[in-house]
């Protein structure tokens, strides 16, 4: 079998699965995962559209009174399973790929022919911060030609995180104006962040998720909290889970405890704090790095009260944040100082870089930035000394080829994650802890649901084999 066959087989599987997706969408009048009511839609006749099986729903309903936010993702793993199986078949040497963000892949690991126990290796393989996926929310809130630099700031960070491994699907890019196509742009259809015009930030492969007048306070808060209209496409949603490290980068014109959106409205520091709190309640993040480049930026993180959030701001309260330099041919300032000096560090990093955030913060030069950057660590018990820059700016490299498979001992993994998840020792937090399992989306759960998983898997395998047979007949 060569690649062509493999590809056609994959295409076939995708086609075969498409009706399932359609059904999945169609039967979601009110999205119970993201809807507020939290009412399990487990009435007798409706089967769980996410897992495609009634059994799974029963398991969920019995296990937790609340709906599992990750439930709908279980349909994805099957595709992964098929594809993995395909890969396994196409490779002469039996290798096991371990992906950490799709639980079924763990089962695949368990399924691998040469089980071996090497917990230290697995532990080292999973990100030491305890996260399994990375997301970035990059927001430029300013309109107008003379705010060119804000768009350049945001796009610079976009290119950095993309280079460091966060895929476009995990980056929500919000640009409130299109300066590239502004008639005043001396270099049409380009955006540069330097007077040298080394990189065209708008050149190719830029996926803007929210643009123009879509960039509103409402949309931003909906994005963070996940309270979307059912019609909002998945590419515009922040599909994070409690293992997600989220980079939230904002830039625009702000003041004491507000950031202006679009010249029409503003977001307050309380709004951001409450949105993060809702994210925490809904297990939508593991850790957040909140970075903001605006005047009096430090005021914007002042009100945040949810745990595991690290914040960096370009200027203290009462200080202005300044632009770095003007490109005289474009005629406007092209980048802000804080972002410029961050990029100076970030652009030298590679994907596996072990620099910590503390090292990044120590590069901040108050003289050069012309304002005092503010850093807030009190909500972040892991300390910036222990957090890697790539924990937020990079993606989890979760594919590694090994010669032998690993056997996981589920109990160890869970206890480990439990100790890593930080909860503030406030009154009431203990209760919340007991109500909400700290990590519902780990290997253990998958392990326990093996029966529910294996049936469709076997069916799928049969279907796949039937497909291969069918293809061989056709060809």
């Amino acid at each position: 079998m060569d690649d062509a066959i493999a590809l056609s087989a994959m295409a076939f599987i995708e086609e075969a699965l498409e009706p399932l997706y359609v059904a999945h969408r169609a039967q979601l009048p009110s999205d119970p995962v993201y809807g507020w009511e939290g009412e399990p839609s487990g009435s007798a006749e409706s089967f769980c559209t996410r897992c495609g099986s009634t059994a799974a729903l029963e398991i969920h309903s019995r296990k937790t009174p609340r709906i599992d936010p990750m439930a709908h993702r279980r349909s994805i793993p099957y595709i992964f399973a098929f594809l993995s199986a395909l890969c396994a078949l196409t490779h002469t040497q039996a290798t096991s790929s371990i992906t950490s963000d799709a639980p079924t892949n763990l089962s695949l690991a368990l399924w691998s022919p040469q089980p071996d126990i090497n917990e230290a290796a697995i532990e080292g393989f999973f990100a030491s911060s305890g996260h399994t996926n990375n997301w970035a929310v990059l927001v430029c809130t300013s309109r107008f030609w003379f705010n060119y630099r804000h768009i350049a700031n945001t796009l610079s960070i976009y290119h950095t995180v993309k280079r460091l491994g966060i895929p476009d699907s995990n980056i929500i890019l919000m640009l409130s104006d299109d300066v590239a196509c502004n008639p005043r742009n001396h270099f049409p259809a380009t955006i540069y962040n330097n007077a040298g015009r080394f990189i065209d930030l708008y050149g190719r492969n830029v996926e803007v998720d929210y643009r123009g007048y879509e960039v509103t306070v409402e949309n931003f808060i909906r994005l963070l909290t996940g309270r979307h209209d059912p019609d909002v496409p998945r590419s515009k949603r922040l599909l994070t889970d409690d293992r997600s490290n989220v980079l939230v980068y904002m830039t625009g014109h702000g003041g004491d405890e507000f950031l202006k959106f679009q010249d029409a409205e503003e977001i307050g520091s309380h709004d951001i704090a409450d949105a993060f709190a809702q994210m925490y309640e809904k297990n939508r993040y593991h850790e957040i790095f909140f970075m903001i480049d605006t005047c009096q930026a430090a005021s914007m993180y002042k009100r945040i009260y949810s745990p595991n959030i690290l914040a960096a701001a370009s200027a203290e309260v009462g200080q202005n944040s300044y632009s770095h330099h003007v490109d005289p041919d474009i005629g406007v300032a092209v980048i802000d100082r804080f972002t410029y000096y961050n990029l100076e560090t970030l652009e030298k990093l590679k994907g596996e870089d072990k620099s910590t955030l503390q090292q990044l913060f120590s590069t901040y030069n108050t003289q050069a930035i012309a304002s005092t950057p503010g850093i807030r660590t009190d909500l972040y018990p892991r300390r910036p000394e222990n957090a890697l820059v790539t924990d937020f700016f990079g993606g989890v490299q979760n594919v590694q080829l090994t010669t032998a498979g690993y056997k996981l001992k589920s109990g160890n993994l869970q206890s480990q994650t439990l100790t890593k998840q930080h909860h503030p020792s406030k009154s009431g937090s203990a209760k919340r802890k007991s109500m909400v399992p700290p990590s519902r989306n780990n290997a253990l759960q998958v392990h326990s649901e093996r029966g529910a998983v294996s049936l469709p898997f076997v069916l799928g395998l049969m279907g796949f084999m039937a497909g291969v047979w069918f293809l061989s007949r056709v060809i």
Partner: protein
Amino acid sequence: MTHSTWSQLSSQARGGPAKGTEMLRFKRSATAAAPSPPKLAKELRRIHFRRVVGYYLQKVISSSSWIFYVVGLLWLLLLPRDEFHHVAKVDENALLPGQTSKYFGDLDLWVATSYRDQIRTMGDPSKNVSGHAEFLEQEFRSFGLDASTQNFLHARHDEIVSGANSYAVFRAPRGDGTEAIVISAPWLLENGAVNAEGVSYVLAFAKFVTRFSHWAKDFIFLVTHPSPIGTQAWLEAYHGVQSDLSSWLQYDPLDRHGGVIHEAINLEFDGNGAYSAVGILVDGLNGLLPNADLVTTVVRCAQYEGLPVGIHNVVSPNKFDDNWSSYFHKADIILEYMKSQALGVPTASHALYARYHIEAMTVRGLHDVKGTQYPITGHQIGRAIESALRSLNNLLERLHHAYWFYIMPTAQSFIPLSVYIPPVILLSVTLVIESLVMWWASGDLHQSPPARPNLIEGTEVANHPADISAFNIRIRPLFLPVVTLVLCHAAGAIAFYLAPTVRFMALIGEVNPFNMAAAVVVVTATIYSFMIPTLQRMMEGSGASTRTTAPAWLILKCLGCAELGAALIALSTLNPSLSVFLAIPSVPAFLLARPTESHYRFLLNVAAVTLASPLGLLGIMSLWEGLDVAQGVAGKVVDGWTLYGAWLLPFICYVYWPMNMVANVIIGMEQ
């Protein structure tokens, strides 16, 4: 109010305690029982206190209303001091003056200079209207622009002048074409010279802008001739106005249009070679000013290119020898600025744009300016203009961040509205207060502080103060003053309708200005010194005071002061300079005006009022600046109204002159 309270009390005294109690209870419903004597005494004391305060307040105000005038004058004299000036900043973030690279290079300058030479050699172009228009249209077309010519006819006194405006529209290459910037130049300057370099810059820029795609707004290149009436015709046609057959101005509709015009820059460079500075002209029709951001942007862009910028042909040095030289330097400029604004007639083509909410200013080349050392080059001028256009191109909306009300002591600084408006209003507020004083004086005969009321011991009855009496209140005669006001206004209206005719006769008949002035004096004197008083006597009697009636002149002065004061205060927000120049002579004249038996006082009053009359002001001007200037100003004021709608003439004829006649009548009235 005090009066009615007292009548209550006196009726209480007359009608007995029971009724009085009832009335007091009505007044202060909280007290159910009859007030005890101490309470009544307290009430009496309160009323008495209020009367005393009112009396002294009246007295102080009556005797010192002139204080406001003096304070206003002193404050005006302080305005040239640096402490009152704000260094101009650009308030609109989008403008970013001078941040861009300038691309205006040798080739563009060569285009400009070759056009300049060509225009110079076109002979006497003022006679050959269609020739130059054809040439310009052809050149515009050669750059690929939408070019056209608008013809118009202008009836001027004795002849009909035909004119032609050539214009071209450059469409924004990637813009939406909703907004436009005008770059204009008159073909001939005010002094009759050909605006060779101004027009050549317009042509050079028409060619220059086609090289770039970064323009977000349409550019309209406009060469008007004759100017500024050509600008008027073009602007009216651009905004969809059709000329009606009876008007002074007949013009064709435009067959090319661009977006909504937001800003306009008018270029006047006579092409006589070395300029030593560029000058800016900002004040428009009726003294309307462009947004300060436009002025600041153009000045900044010029200064970044190393051009000295002057206002009213003066370039201010950065440093002065001492405070006094700085003071007099700036006082001179402010005076020139205010004179120009007060007249409100168009000084150049930019003046007419303000009516359409277009921010416009003129940039002109200045020769032999004191304080400049080096001649400036065409490069600098071209780059400064380009830089300003790039800034205006950055705008996303109309200029609205900076103010429209300012006085410029130098090209780089402003006196904002908040600083200069108090003295302007203080000058005229004197008249409003004087009007109040006259009203008090005509109604009340109290000339002594109010007597203290005494409660009769053991009773609830107070002594009736002698000064409280129905006979102390005089009747205010209103008919005679109102008739006088109406007659004076009617006389002003007649003057207004005669003004264009008089102007025509003065132009055609070569009338000696002294004869003209004498005629006007005789006519007005007849009106206000003879006819009106005679009419007054026929209709209403002499207007003298009697025991029960106040003299009519008090009421007339009261009404006149109120009207003139209100008019000047209203004017101060529209054209502060005019308000100042009218208030300074007329306020003292009005304060002094009263019938008197002293001959000296009478002569003083008449002199003050005559000096404050429009004719007197013209006389002062002819003494100060020469007869020609005064004649020219009078002609400009009349033309400003008939051609452009400048409302200095109507204001003078409908408000200011009638009020001056009223002051004259007051002097001649019975005491």
